[in-house]
């Protein structure tokens, strides 16, 4: 004889399983991006060239364009979440519509002369 309670249990389990799956997806996704650490401003200011070649994630707000270097890109000043102000280069090849006063989640790379080059960026 089939139990009358089985359909109810199934009905409860389905959303629970869905939530668990969703959380797992989020967790795994985050773990994948944690491979890139946040931009270490203090270390950079202490010795910019020491960070050459490293890639970092950077969440910051675009403040203003400082200069445009032909065939290279735009030098803009940004302010990170700790309100530090510094300059990054947004290369021309990076197809993004960067706007001031907007916050972006960026991947940046420190160049050989200590320049900070944006590799990717997206609003957040």
């Amino acid at each position: 004889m089939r139990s009358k309670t089985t359909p109810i249990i199934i009905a409860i389990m389905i959303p629970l399983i869905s939530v668990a799956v969703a959380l797992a997806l989020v967790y795994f996704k985050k773990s994948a991006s944690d491979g890139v650490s946040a931009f270490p401003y203090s270390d950079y200011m202490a010795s910019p060239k020491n960070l050459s070649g490293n890639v970092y994630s950077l969440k910051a707000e675009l403040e203003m364009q400082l200069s445009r270097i032909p065939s290279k890109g735009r030098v803009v000043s940004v302010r990170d979440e700790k309100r530090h102000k510094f300059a990054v280069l947004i290369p021309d090849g990076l197809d993004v519509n960067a706007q001031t006063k907007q916050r972006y989640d960026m991947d940046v790379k420190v160049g050989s002369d200590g320049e900070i080059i944006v590799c990717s960026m997206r609003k957040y």
Partner: protein
Amino acid sequence: MKRTFFSIFAAFLSVSAFSQGAHWIQQQGAAVQSQTVPAAPQAADSGVSSVSAKAPAGGFFESATGERMADKIFDTEKDSFDLEDGTLNWKGKTFNIGNSRMVRARFERYLSMPVDTQNFNKYQGILSEIAARLSASNDNLPDEAVRACWSRLFDAAEYDVDGQSSLTIANLVYLAWRMRGEYDVAKMEEREQMAAVKEAQFKAKERAEFMEYASDKIAKMNSSKNASTRKRTEGTADIAYRVQDLQKEVVELATKNTFREATATKAVLQFQSQVLAFLIERKFQQAQIASMFYRHIYRGNVQEMKVGNDQLKDLFPVSNFVATVDTFENVATEARKDVRDGMAAVNALYDSGETYGALQRLMETFAIGEFDPLLAVFPYEKKKVLHKLYRDMSALKSLSDSRDWGTMEKILEEFEKVAPDFPSKEALAKIRAAQRISEMHVMAAKQAAALGKPDDVKKSLAAAMEAWPLNPSIADFNADLVGLASGASKYIQKFDELLARKNYREIAAEAPEYAIAMRQDAERSESLKKIVVKMSQIDSLIAQAEEFEKQNNKYFAWDLLDGARIIDPQDPKLALALARLAPEVSDYVKMLGRAKNAEDAKDFAAALNYYLAAQEIFPASRSCRLGIERVAPKYVK
């Protein structure tokens, strides 16, 4: 006499000349345009001079009238001592003071004379005693009492402070008495003469009557004998002789009468003249005492003034005014009251530390009461202090004429200690303004010299001398010019050495000298000009930085100094200013230093971020802005 009276007053009031030192302050300092010294406050009457004030109004017509008129006309509130116009208002009359060296010298002599206070109180006691005995209330004083007062005058004359003036009064009284004696003798002779006239009249009458009787008798006898009658002539010569004798006696009587009246008039005139002389000489106490003696020696109509009427009428401008000897006494009393009040003010001011005010009041009081005992016993220690102040004020006048501001400044600075009430602050401000103007002209002359403009040098130096002829900077500059004329080659060599060491600051310090030495050398002159301009710019920026620093805008100050470094990074004065300010703005300096080092090392990316960090500390930083503008285009190689 009228002119004499006023001229004497004008002379003794010309003490205003003493105030020329302070007067200079009004002229040169322009701070005090027209200073009028208020009249000394009126103090309570006392002592000798109060005697006449106590005269009974009902008993003595002249005295009461004099008092009332004195109160009415003597408006002491209007007394003033106008130093600017050289005039003095005393008792409603304006006197021309003028500039009397003699009076000034007398005042100096007075200030420098040591005081002999030999029993001054005893001396004043004698005079008070005399005044009290002779006061108007003792109208019917016996001659013995007057004589006792007279003898006391000799006691008073023993004191140095009296200056023998009591002796003068005593002699005057004695002379009056002697003349009165002569008058009495003349009166007696006149009486004898009158008796002789009466006797001669009687004899002439008796003889005439006898002749009339004899003539009638003879006529009656002859009429019966002889029809023809003949007039008798015996006795006519005798009558004529007797009439002649009578006439002679009458004439002699008239002569003696005239002589007696002349003697009396002479005595009165002599006494009144002496009282007037005391008044004119400002010997008011003597005038008072002499007037009192006069009142007791002469009475009734003789009280009326026979001399000095015109002078007194000027002080009492009433048409029907009858001047009496009491009028003299009133004037003297009023003047002595002024002197007493003046000296009270002098002492009060001096004791409260207002020595300048004390000297002013003393000068005014001296003008009126030069011979008053109160002035004579003014303490020598105070006089010494006031004498020094007076001499310094006189020196100020001559120094101001020669525009020796430097010495004047020293004196005025000293005045702030010894005479804090002296209006020296305004004078000092004017002096310093004149000094600065002169210094500015000297600076202009130096700059003109640096630019090789001899005409401008001359003009500027002339202007500097006009403002301050004894400006030491002018002498220094001239000395430098003279030295330069003989040592041009030495200066050129020195210039080249300093230029090679880039010691621009030292070159700029002697720019005028170099300019003159190298005025024929266009190339070096051009270099010198550039250096002077550079140093001026740096000095200007340093001055601005100091101003910002004072306003607590230290980052601004640093920014200006940092900007000056572009002009001459090795300037020692600038380096000193930077070193002094650096600890105050160390965070900013540190970051900016890093940025510049990175920029110099061509690490433009790092330099840009350092500039941005420095800008975070001082957002208005010009150095950061310019640095960012420079390195941002070089962010990526």
